[in-house]
């Protein structure tokens, strides 16, 4: 059998190294790597056959394309290089592949140290892919941390005026969370007496009857904090707006599109799947946090003046819905969560690209001082419109099936509490529409002489995402059928 | 040899250590500082030698070996230290250690 996942990793690794080394031609290397990677992902999706089913809720999950090699083997410690995927990871790998190629194309004209820039873009994606396929605690943690470093440098070197502050804040926040997460994961392994650090062994150990509920609940909360900061959850969210405002456009795209998804993926794979009893006994905390994030994110978006800040707060709102869908703990909710993560990755990517282009072309992202940009930049205005409409959940665009499933799952578990996220949808529509009214429409004012529409690379980068938004909005079945083919489909 | 003799020997090295430490803490001149360090090190070397003498078997040999290693170490340390002194003198025209505090910034 071909070790396809390792090949996937090696493709990106090789591409990254080559990109760093290739000077002015870096963008071509990065583009080539991205295209090869995308086709490998397609191959993976094609080869991913139906998951054979599951004996019961507590049966050990099986993963496709799995590989396992001993890495560190001591009498009391077994660490392996174990990788494998299921439908959930595959969807997120697909998201990574698309975002990577869109980012590389969008940033095509980057002139400030292009080799380093494109190398860091690929490195971020490499780390994310590693997180999505790793099935060993240490390997997982390694890749998890590997995404931090390139993002730190992207914000810190290519960022805006307060980049040092933002980069440090981002780093400290997520690093503290990762430490808590690592300690909690190790504690899970040791307290449950897992045979190794492999996911399967940990799964068996935590599902054995001897593992005390209180321990599970406490460990789950620690993991929830660790992954939650990446979501981000209220009240640990303030790093996100600052990081986005200072990050360069490509960095914002990857940060919102990929890094936030790591939190969601980690929570599903390493907390909910591993400690279902922990979730069951602390679910009210998770619900409260999810509702708080949904309400807080949306309400705050309304009063933001910076386009990027607004989109950042709306990300908090959307990831809150993801958290809610995970917390209801059902296959429907899980499906909704993963679908919504994919949708949010694409849509927020588009919106951050558009914000970046607005800044580039009109010299500001301040909503209050932008007026009527449509006549000067019709294509850019269209992109903003598509992104906003998709983000507020218009049917036939990608977010709608996801939000529909998430709300249905919430209704299923929580009944009339679903009214909270439903009414917040009105607020979400409100701030996007208000933003469009001010920025896109009305008579043009304060439009600088040099203002221009998108160049061909920006258009191409965004067009990839727009195509995905419409394609998967009209035909969500493609994604759903992959997600449904996963071991966690056995949720109640 | 009796315990009394050992106590006297140890008293000598304790005195040497004390003198060395006093020098290290009070001198500001880099060369004097180096000398003080050498004195303190010699206290340790002497200890190795005494104990090697009292010990029997392979332990005694290793004590003497350690003494030789430390002497060699002290020599290299002085070499490096004097090199620093020269560099310092060339750069600042003074070998007062209190003035060489750029590390603080």
């Amino acid at each position: 059998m071909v070790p396809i996942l390792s090949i996937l990793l090696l493709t990106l690794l090789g591409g990254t190294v080559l990109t760093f080394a290739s000077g002015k031609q870096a963008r071509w290397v990065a583009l080539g790597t991205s295209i090869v990677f995308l086709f490998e992902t397609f191959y993976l999706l094609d080869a991913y056959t139906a998951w054979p089913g599951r004996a019961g809720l507590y049966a050990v999950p099986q993963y496709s394309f799995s590989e396992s090699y001993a890495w560190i083997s001591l009498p009391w410690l077994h660490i392996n290089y174990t990788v494998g995927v299921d439908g959930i990871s595959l969807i997120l790998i697909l998201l990574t592949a698309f975002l990577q190629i869109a980012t590389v194309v969008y940033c095509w004209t980057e002139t400030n140290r292009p080799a380093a820039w494109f190398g860091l873009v690929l490195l971020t994606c490499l780390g994310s892919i590693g997180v999505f396929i790793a099935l060993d605690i240490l390997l997982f943690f390694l890749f998890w941390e590997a995404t931090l470093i390139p993002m730190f440098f992207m914000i810190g070197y290519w960022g805006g005026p307060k980049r040092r502050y933002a980069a440090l804040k981002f780093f400290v926040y997520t690093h503290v969370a990762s430490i808590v997460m690592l300690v909690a994961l190790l504690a899970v392994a040791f307290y449950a007496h897992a045979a190794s650090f492999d996911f399967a062994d940990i799964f068996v150990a935590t599902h054995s009857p001897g593992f005390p509920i209180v321990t599970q609940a406490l460990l789950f909360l620690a993991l929830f904090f660790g992954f939650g900061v990446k979501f981000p959850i209220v009240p640990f969210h303030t790093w996100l707006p600052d990081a986005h405002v200072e990050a360069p456009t490509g960095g914002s795209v990857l940060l919102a599109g990929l890094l936030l998804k790591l939190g969601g993926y980690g929570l599903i794979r390493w907390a909910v799947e591993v400690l279902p009893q922990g979730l069951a006994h602390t679910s009210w905390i998770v619900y409260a946090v999810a509702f708080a994030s949904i309400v807080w994110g949306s309400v705050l978006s309304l009063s933001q003046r910076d386009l990027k800040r607004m989109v950042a707060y709306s990300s908090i709102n959307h990831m809150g819905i993801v958290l809610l869908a995970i917390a209801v703990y059902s296959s429907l909710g899980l499906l909704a969560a993963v679908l919504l993560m994919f949708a949010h990755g694409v849509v927020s990517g588009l919106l951050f690209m558009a914000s970046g282009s607005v800044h580039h072309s009109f010299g500001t992202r301040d909503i209050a001082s932008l007026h009527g940009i449509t006549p000067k930049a019709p294509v850019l205005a269209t992109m903003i419109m598509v992104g906003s409409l998709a983000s507020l959940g218009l049917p036939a665009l990608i977010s709608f099936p996801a939000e529909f499933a998430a709300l249905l799952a919430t209704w299923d578990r929580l009944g009339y509490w679903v009214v909270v996220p439903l009414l917040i949808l009105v607020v979400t529509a409100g701030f996007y529409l208000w933003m469009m009214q001010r920025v896109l429409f009305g008579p043009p004012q304060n439009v600088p002489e040099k203002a221009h529409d998108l160049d061909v690379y920006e258009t191409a980068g965004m067009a990839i995402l727009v195509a995905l938004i419409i394609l998967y909005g009209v035909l969500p079945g493609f994604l759903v059928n992959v997600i449904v083919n996963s071991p966690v489909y056995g949720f109640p | 040899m009796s315990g009394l003799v050992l106590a006297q020997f140890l008293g000598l090295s304790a005195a040497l250590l004390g003198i060395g430490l006093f020098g290290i803490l009070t001198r500001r001149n880099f060369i004097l500082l180096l000398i003080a360090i050498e004195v303190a090190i010699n206290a340790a070397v002497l200890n190795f030698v005494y104990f090697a003498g009292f010990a029997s078997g392979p332990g005694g040999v290793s004590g003497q070996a350690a003494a030789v290693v430390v002497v060699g170490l002290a020599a290299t340390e002085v070499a490096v230290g004097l090199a620093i002194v020269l560099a310092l003198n060339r750069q600042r025209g003074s070998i007062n250690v209190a003035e060489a505090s750029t590390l603080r910034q």
Partner: protein
Amino acid sequence: MGAFDTLFQWAFLVPLFPLVGFVIVGFFGDRMKKAEYGGWVAVVLSGLAMFVGILIAIGEALSPGTYTDASYTWLNLPGTQSVFSNGFSLVMGTLVDPISALMLVVVNVVGFLVMLYSIAYMHHDQGLPRYYAELSLFLVAMNGLVLSDNLLEFFLFWELVGVCSYFLIGFYYEKPSAASAAKEAFLVTRVGDVLFLLGIFLYFATYATSGGGAGWAASGFKFTNGNTPFLGSLVGSASSPTLTIAGLMMLAGAAGKSAQFPLDVWLPDAMEGPTTVSALIHAATMVAAGVYLLVVVSLFLGFTADDRLAIVAVGGFTTIWAASMALVNTDIKRVVAYSTISQLGYMVLAVGAGFAMVGLYHLFTHAFFKALLFLAAGSVIHAVGTQDLLKMGGLRKSMRVTWIAFFVGAMSLSGIPPFAGFWSKDDVLASVYSQVGAHPLYWPFLLCAFATVFLTAYYIFRAWFLAFDGDGSRDASLPHAHEAPWAMRLPLIVLSGLALVAGLFAFVPSFANLLPGAGVPPTYGTTDLMLSATSVGLGFGGLGLAYLMWGNGRVFTLPADSPLQPFRTVLLRRYYVKDAYDWFGLKAVYGLSRAADFVDQYVIDGTVRGIERAFSQLSDAGRRLQTGVVSDYAAYVVSGLVGLLVFLLWIAPWLVRSVGGG
């Protein structure tokens, strides 16, 4: 199998033709030599759609039946333990039955005529390809909505027509008022939409459970639930709190889309869009979708008694609420817009009283005469370049066709026989009257509806007299009016004909199959004659009052110091409802958001920064120890060594002793 199933399976062509138009005009319209070419492409394709739509309607009229083609699985969702145990598939497809065939006729006939009219009306405007693309997309969505075979698909297209309406209201996006009106329309209907979605969940949960876990496809959720929808009978007597709430949510959705009280504020402002858009979307089709939803739900899912009272209340109150605001308005489009809200109220009233088919009947006639009124108003605006009634006058000499067309529309709207509006409005009133015996609570709303007949005739003829009567333009600055070109006149003539005869269709034997039971009022006989006489009398009364006050003679005018004048202000300010909404949005919600932002920046992030400051002060204190002087470090080393020795030699043994001894 019905006789025309081979025809009905091509129903998907009806939305497909405009979709082709959308793609061609939307992507290649800018590259065509003349902007009108794109317009003609859209006109031809919508004509084809109309052709297929009429064929389907003829098929249904000759052989009524339900045809479904649900073949595309949109989503396969996993089940959950509590409700949807076996998982479920969301299947999309087309459903052709008499009422959807009727709606196809309404949508595509009006759609085609408006497209044709636009060729002349819009030809001065910039961005024509955008206009035709958006209009075509609207027709796609509206036809899709009509042909939906389940509530979710309905909702999907429902939102799409909403977004098309958003784009088209904001067509002149450089006008701040247009941009604001577009936002307002989307946002107000959005409130109804999310509640509608909740209603879908409720129905879904209810029927998916009682359906025995077979899931969506076999649940009562599909529109074809084994019921024969065209008999006009209410389904089931099911009543549970959940179903009542679900029904109320449907009402909320319909109220948003059909601009019923209290979600009616957006429709008058939506007149910022081109008049053609107002005629098609905000008079004939999209706003009627709310009523269509209520009709469909009452036929397939059924409303509880409480729901029906609520629907009657909303509809009945809206008739007089909107009509009263039309009394004083001087903007010709807004007057017609208020009349739309008011007439939609009649439809809602009828559906609530249990006469879905009667509501649909009024929807059908209303679509034609209201589109006619809007297009006639558009012709006037095109000629004189203003919408202000007070600046118009004397147009009847220069614009004969428009003059007559507006008159036909106004007569129909006022419910004067034999115009179309008479038959359906009379039917509504008689139907509701037949229910007040059993439901005395319906009385006030029936009275509202009767009073509105008078008001309607008054305000629409006031507009007619103001625009066309008198001896010439009251404002000399306006250009000399001339009759519209043929592309505008032709739709006016066709619609005038329809506004004359559409009411009679319910009596034509085959065609009546599309509106079973609608033509014959439930209280056929003397009572019905009395009711008709009353409503026609009220209509003529309103007409007469309008003539006295605004006709040539101006026999009677309201004095400036009349005690009624304060009411005028209230009506012009729209009962301050819009002000209240603006306050709520701008002050309450936005203020809350600002307050939350303050908390976010200074409390939450302030805590974070506080922690950061505490650490940096701690490390500042530590920094003082780092003098950089070698001797100081040496001193630290020595004192550390001494401390360690003291600990090991004295403190540790003492600790061991005291613990061991204790």
